[in-house]
C-alpha cells in the first residue's frame, strides 16, 4: 500500500501536460522536458522494465551453450541449436495440441458467452438478476480446488466415453467450456448494453427474428468485444497449467505449457535444459503475441467498455 501513496503524486506530475484541454490551457508554454520529456522518461523506464525479461528469454534461446548460467541479457553468440533440440523432441506435438485446444475452446466459449450476454442484455426474464450474480459467485470458487471432483468425474467419463476422457484434447476442451460463461458474460453484457435497443426494435418491426437480430445486427457491432474475449480465452487456455497437468499424462497428449514445465522441473538438469526451455517459451509466445498485435486496435476500447460498464 505504501507504494500507492508514494506513487500517485509522481503519477500526477506526469499528468500536467496530458489531457488535450490542459495542454491548451497553457502547459504547452513550458520547456521540452515539461511538455514531453517527462512522458518519454516514464515511457522508457516502463519499456525497459517490460522488455528485459523478454530480451533475456530470447537471448537465452539463441545461446549456443543452452545453459542458464551462460545466458545473458544481450546475446553474445547466435545459434539455433536450442531450436533444433526443441523441434526434434516432443515439442511440435505439444505445440499443435496447445493450438488446437486453445483455438477451439476460445472460439466456442466466445460464441457461448456472446449468446448468454445477448440474453442477459436484451431480454427480461425470471431469474435474470440472480443468474448474473450467481455467475459472479461461481467464479469465485477456486475452480481448481474442485480438481479432485473433476478428476473423479473424468475417471468415470474415461471409462464410458474414452474419446472425451483423460489424455484427449476433446475432454480438456469441454472442461474449459465450463468456464465459458463467467467473467466474459459480464464483460460482453456491458458492451451489449451500449448498443442502442432501437436498432433491434426497428429490425424487429421490419420482420427480423431474434436470431437474425443477434447474428445480423448485434454480433457485427460487438466485434471488438468478441475479439477481446476470444483473445483472453486463447491466452487463458494456452497458459492453463494445473488442470492440463493432471488430465494430460501421456507425452503425446500434453500441451506446451505442461511439456515446458516438465523440461525444467528437475533441479539437477534444469540448468542444462534452460536454453531449450527458453526456445519453447519463445515459440509458444509467437501465436499469442501475433494475435495480440493483430487485434490491438480493438483491445483498448474493448477492455474498457466492458470494465466501465461492469
Amino acid at each position, binding site marked *: 500500500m505504501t*507504494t500507492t501513496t508514494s*506513487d*500517485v503524486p509522481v*503519477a500526477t506530475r*506526469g499528468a*500536467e501536460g496530458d*489531457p488535450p*484541454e*490542459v*495542454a491548451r*490551457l497553457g502547459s504547452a508554454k513550458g520547456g521540452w522536458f515539461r*511538455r514531453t520529456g*517527462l*512522458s518519454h522518461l*516514464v*515511457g522508457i523506464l*516502463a519499456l525497459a522494465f*517490460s*522488455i528485459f*525479461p523478454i530480451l533475456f528469454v530470447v537471448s537465452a534461446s539463441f545461446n549456443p551453450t543452452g545453459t*542458464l*548460467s551462460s545466458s545473458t*541479457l544481450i546475446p553474445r553468440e547466435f545459434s539455433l541449436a536450442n531450436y533444433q533440440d526443441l523441434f526434434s523432441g516432443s515439442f511440435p506435438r505439444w505445440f499443435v495440441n496447445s493450438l488446437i485446444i486453445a483455438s477451439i475452446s476460445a472460439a466456442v466459449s466466445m460464441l*457461448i*458467452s456472446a*449468446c*448468454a450476454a445477448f*440474453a442477459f442484455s436484451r431480454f427480461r426474464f425470471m431469474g435474470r438478476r440472480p*443468474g448474473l450474480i450467481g455467475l459472479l459467485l*461461481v467464479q469465485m*470458487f*477456486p*475452480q481448481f*480446488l474442485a480438481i479432485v*471432483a*473433476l478428476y473423479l468425474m473424468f*475417471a468415470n467419463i*474415461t471409462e*464410458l*466415453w474414452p474419446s472425451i*476422457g*483423460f489424455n484427449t484434447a476433446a475432454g480438456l476442451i469441454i472442461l474449459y467450456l*465450463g468456464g*465459458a*460463461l463467467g467473467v466474459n458474460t459480464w464483460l460482453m453484457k456491458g458492451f451489449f448494453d451500449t448498443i442502442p435497443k432501437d436498432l433491434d426494435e426497428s429490425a424487429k418491426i421490419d420482420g427480423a*427474428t431474434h436470431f437474425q437480430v443477434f447474428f445480423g445486427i448485434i454480433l457485427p457491432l460487438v466485434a471488438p468485444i468478441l475479439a477481446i474475449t476470444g483473445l483472453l480465452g486463447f491466452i487463458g487456455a*494456452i497458459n492453463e497449467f494445473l488442470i492440463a497437468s493432471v488430465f494430460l499424462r501421456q507425452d503425446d497428449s500434453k500441451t506446451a505449457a505442461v511439456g515446458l*514445465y516438465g523440461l525444467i522441473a528437475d533441479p539437477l538438469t534444469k*540448468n542444462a535444459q534452460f536454453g531449450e*526451455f527458453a526456445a519453447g*517459451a519463445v515459440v*509458444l*509466445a509467437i501465436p*499469442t503475441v501475433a494475435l*495480440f498485435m493483430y487485434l490491438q486496435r480493438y*483491445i483498448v476500447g474493448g*477492455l*474498457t467498455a466492458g*470494465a*466501465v460498464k461492469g
Partner: protein
Amino acid sequence: MLLVKVVGLGFLAAVALFAALPLIRTDNWWGLAIVLAVTALAFYIYLSPRPVPLKYLLPGTLFLIVFQVLPVVYTVSTAFTNFSDGHRGTKEQAITAIEGASVKQVPDSTIYTLTLATDGDAATGDIVFLLADPTTQDSFVGTADGLEDLGDGSFEAASPGGKITAADDYTVLTVPEINARQDDITAFSVPTDDGAIKSQGLSAAFEGAPQQSYDEGCDCITDATTGNVWTADDSEGSFVSKDGTQRNLAQGWKVGVGFDNFARVFTNDTIRGSFLRIVVWNFAFAIATVAITFALGLLVAIALNNPLMRGRTIYRSLIILPYAMPGIAMYLVWREMFNKDFGLINRLLHTDLNWFGSTASSMFAILLIQLWLGYNYMFLVITGALQSIPSDLVEAAGVDGAKPFYAFRTITFPLLLVALAPLLITSFAFNFNNFSAIFLTSKGGPFPPDNPSAGSTDLLITYTYRLAFGGSGADYGFAAAVSVLIFLIVAAVSIVSFRRTQALEEIN
C-alpha cells in the same frame, strides 16, 4: 434459418446418441434418464417459440452446471467427510481390501505365471492379472470381481500354459508402465473362494489364504496369526484396535464427519497458527498486487496519455508485450532469473542472494514478478478509461482556475476509480487465489523448520493443494473444507466491495 435449426438439432441428437450408447451398454439407467431428460428439454426449448432467452442461455448453462457447479457441490459435500487416502470407498470395499492385503502364501498355494495388464488405458484403467496355470495349462483373467476363464483364441501366449503376451480387451503393461503403477499393483488382489490371488514380483502370482478376516457377528477384524482384534468404528470410518494396543488399520472407509474438518482449522494448534499467518499474507499479497499494478499502470498511462508526445503507439505496443507472453513460461523464466547459483539477477547485481531463501526477499521477488505480469493490463485498461472520461469536466475545472494536479485528484481520479472498481475487485479475487504465482516461483517457501507443510509465502490455495496432494498422504476432506473457507472469504470480500461500489445495484 430452418436449415440451421435442422442441422443444430441433428447435431444435438447425434451427441445424445453418442452419450447414450455407453450408458446402455453398462446398464447405467440413471445416467441414461438424465441424458434423455436433458435432450428432451433442449428439443423443447429450441422447437417451441416461447422460451427465447433460454435458447441463448442453454449451451453455456449446461457446461457451467456440469463442469463448475457439480464439482463445487461435490467439493462442498466432501468437506463434511473424512475422504482421504485409506478412506475412499465403502466399508465392504475396505474389508475386501484388508482381507486381500493380508493374503499370505501357504504351503499348497497354486502358483500362476503372471502378466500385468489393465482394462482400458495403461495409466488410468483398472489393474487386471492375466494368469496362466503351468500345471493345468488353463488361462484366466483376474479382476477385482474375481477369476474368469479367458476364452480360447482371445489371447496369445508364449507357449500353451505359458506367459500370456496379449489378450483382447486388455492392455498388457510395459515395464515403465508397471513402475508407474507399482502401488496399485501391490494393493491389488483377485478374490477367490479360498482367499485371494496376489502378485509376487512381476511375473508370478500365488493363491493364498487371508490372515485377517472379518466377522459380521462382532463387526470386527481378527488376525489369525497374532490374535489381534480391530472393531469397526462407524463414526470414524476405521477399524480401531479393541484393546488399544495396536494402531488403527490403515484401510478405512468414507463416512460423514460433520463439521470436524472445519473445527480442525480452528482447534488444531499447528494448523491454526499457520492458517492465520497464511490468511494475513494472502490478503497482503492480493491487495499489494492490485495496488502496485494499478499504481504503476496509472503512472505510465498518464505519462503516455500526453498528446504532444511522439511515438506513443510504439511505447504502448512494447509496454504491453508481457501481457501477451505465455504467463506460465514467464513465471518460470523469472524464477530462473532469481536463481541463486546461475540467475541473471545475481549476476547483474554481483550478489549471491538466495532470493527464495528468506521470507522478505521471497516476498519481494514474488511481488516484483506480479508487478511485471500485471501492470501492463492495468495500463491498458486505465488508458481506455482515461480516454472515456469526458474532457469538458477537466476543462471546466481548468477555466475555474484549478491546478492540473488538483483537477486530477478531485475529478479524473475519482471517475477512474468508479469506472475501474469492478475490475479492481475481480483482480483482487483472482490474485487471492493466484496459484501459479506462488507454485511456479517460491513454491510457498521458505519453510519454517518446525512446520514443513506451511511455507511463509504460501497462499491458502497452495497450502490447500499441498494438503490435498502433498507428500504425506492425500486428505481431500480437509482440503475441501479449506476450499470452502477460501470461497467464503473471497465471496464475502467481493460482495461487500461490490455493494459499496454499487456495481451490483446497477444491473439493468
